[in-house]
Every structure is written in C-alpha cells, then in structure tokens.
C-alpha cells in the first residue's frame, strides 16, 4: 500500500498529498502524523493539498481530524493549496471545515505557522 511521506523542515512537518487517496492511506497518514508530531517535537504541520482534485466527506473529515489532533498535541496545522473547485464543492457538500487554518500556498502557510508560533511563543516552555 502506498504511503504519504512526512518531511521534517525545522520545527515543522510538511505533508504533500499527491495521490488519489485510498481511505486506508488517509487513516495511516493520520496515525503516522500524530506519532511524528510527538517524536519530532513538531510545532506545526503544513498539509499541501494542491494536487488533490477530489475531497469528499471522508477525506474532509480526515483533514479536520489532523488539525484537531495536532492542536491537542500543541502543534498548529495549516492546509495549503486547496483548489477553487474543491473549495466550492466542499462547502456545497456541507463541510465548511470552520476549525482549520488555510493558506493559498506553501509560502503563505509557512508564514502563518511562524507567526502563530511567535504569538504563542512568549512564556511557552521550550521543547
């Protein structure tokens, strides 16, 4: 079964989804990512979905889960690169994902993660 690579970039983890995802691949990603957040002491996750042309309710739920789980583990998630057609479809499907942070591209997402870290950084114990 194919796996989605999780790359470490300083205190952040970068995940780029480039395959038409199997439900099980999505579940595995969720598990591996939470483990890596802890083992790498990551402060943020950048989830790049710019190559994804379909997000149905299952994949949408997985994206929401990743954001919630990483928050519980003290890391922020930013979803970047959502295609306009996917955004329109997700909202009409009824899945607006109000709790996730988004950015238009990887650069903007990285800036968002860094500023989130700066704001929360004061008085926060080092990892």
């Amino acid at each position, binding site marked *: 079964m194919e796996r989605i690579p999780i790359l470490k970039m300083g205190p952040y983890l970068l995940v780029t989804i480039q395959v038409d995802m199997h*439900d099980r691949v999505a579940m595995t990603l969720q598990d591996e990512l939470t483990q890596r957040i802890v083992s790498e002491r990551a402060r943020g996750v950048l989830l790049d979905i710019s190559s994804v042309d*379909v997000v149905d309710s299952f994949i949408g739920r997985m994206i929401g889960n990743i954001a919630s789980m990483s928050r519980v583990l003290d890391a922020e998630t930013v979803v970047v690169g959502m*295609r306009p057609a996917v955004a329109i479809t997700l909202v009409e*499907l009824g899945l607006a994902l109000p709790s996730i942070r988004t950015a238009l591209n990887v650069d903007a997402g990285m800036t968002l993660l860094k500023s989130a870290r700066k704001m929360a950084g004061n008085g926060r114990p080092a990892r």
Partner: protein
Amino acid sequence: MAVLRDELIGLRSMDDMIKARQLVRDCAIFQGLSLVDQTKIVTAASELARNTLVHGGGGEMRLQALNDGPRRGVKVIFADRGPGIPNIELAMKDGYTTRGGLGLGLSGSKRLVNEFSIESQSGKGTTVSIVRWK
C-alpha cells in the same frame, strides 16, 4: 435522449472506488463539464460509491454520457443488494449517520448534482441515481 457512453463497473473494493472516481471524471471531461461541475459530480460519486461499499456490501456503478438535445450530461447509477435503507427521509438528513461518519454522504451528494433519485427496499438493496448537466 441519447446515451453516448454506457459503462458498468463492479464496486467491491476501495480500488474499485478509486477507479470509479476516475471513470466519472473522464466521462465529465468527455461531456465538456466545467472543472467545478466535474469536481461536484466526482465528489458526489465518491460519496455514493463509498455508501455502496460500506452500507451495501458492494455492488455496481453504471456510468452514462447523456445527450438530451443540446444538453449534455453525466448520469451515474449505484446499485447494491445490501440491507436497504429503512427510513430514506431520515437517511437524507444532514448529520444522520449509522456508522459514525459525518452523515453528509446522501444529503451532501444531492446538493452537488442536478438530479437525484433513490430507491430502497428493505432486504433487497438500494439504487441511487444522479445526473449533472453541463
């Protein structure tokens, strides 16, 4: 109404589901649907194919390219011989789920297409049909 393309594929595994999504995308492109409309019908098909697999215990998908005069569209029919849906009205409600999902599969896919019909008989199975016109 002319049926230009007519394909039937089995939905028995997750691989079939991915193949189904690709076939629907191809057909939508063939019919000249816009990128947004392609995405909508593929997403709706993905929801319904998952229902066929998870709730219906597998089944089949029929895909048709329709020409109705100047109108061009894509029709997808999902059929299973599973337990059926006892209360369709309830199953069509946003947020109603029997398996811990989000409960958006049926109601959400209905919003993504132009035509939606569902028939279900207890113990005999469920058939859902959707059409997206260009």
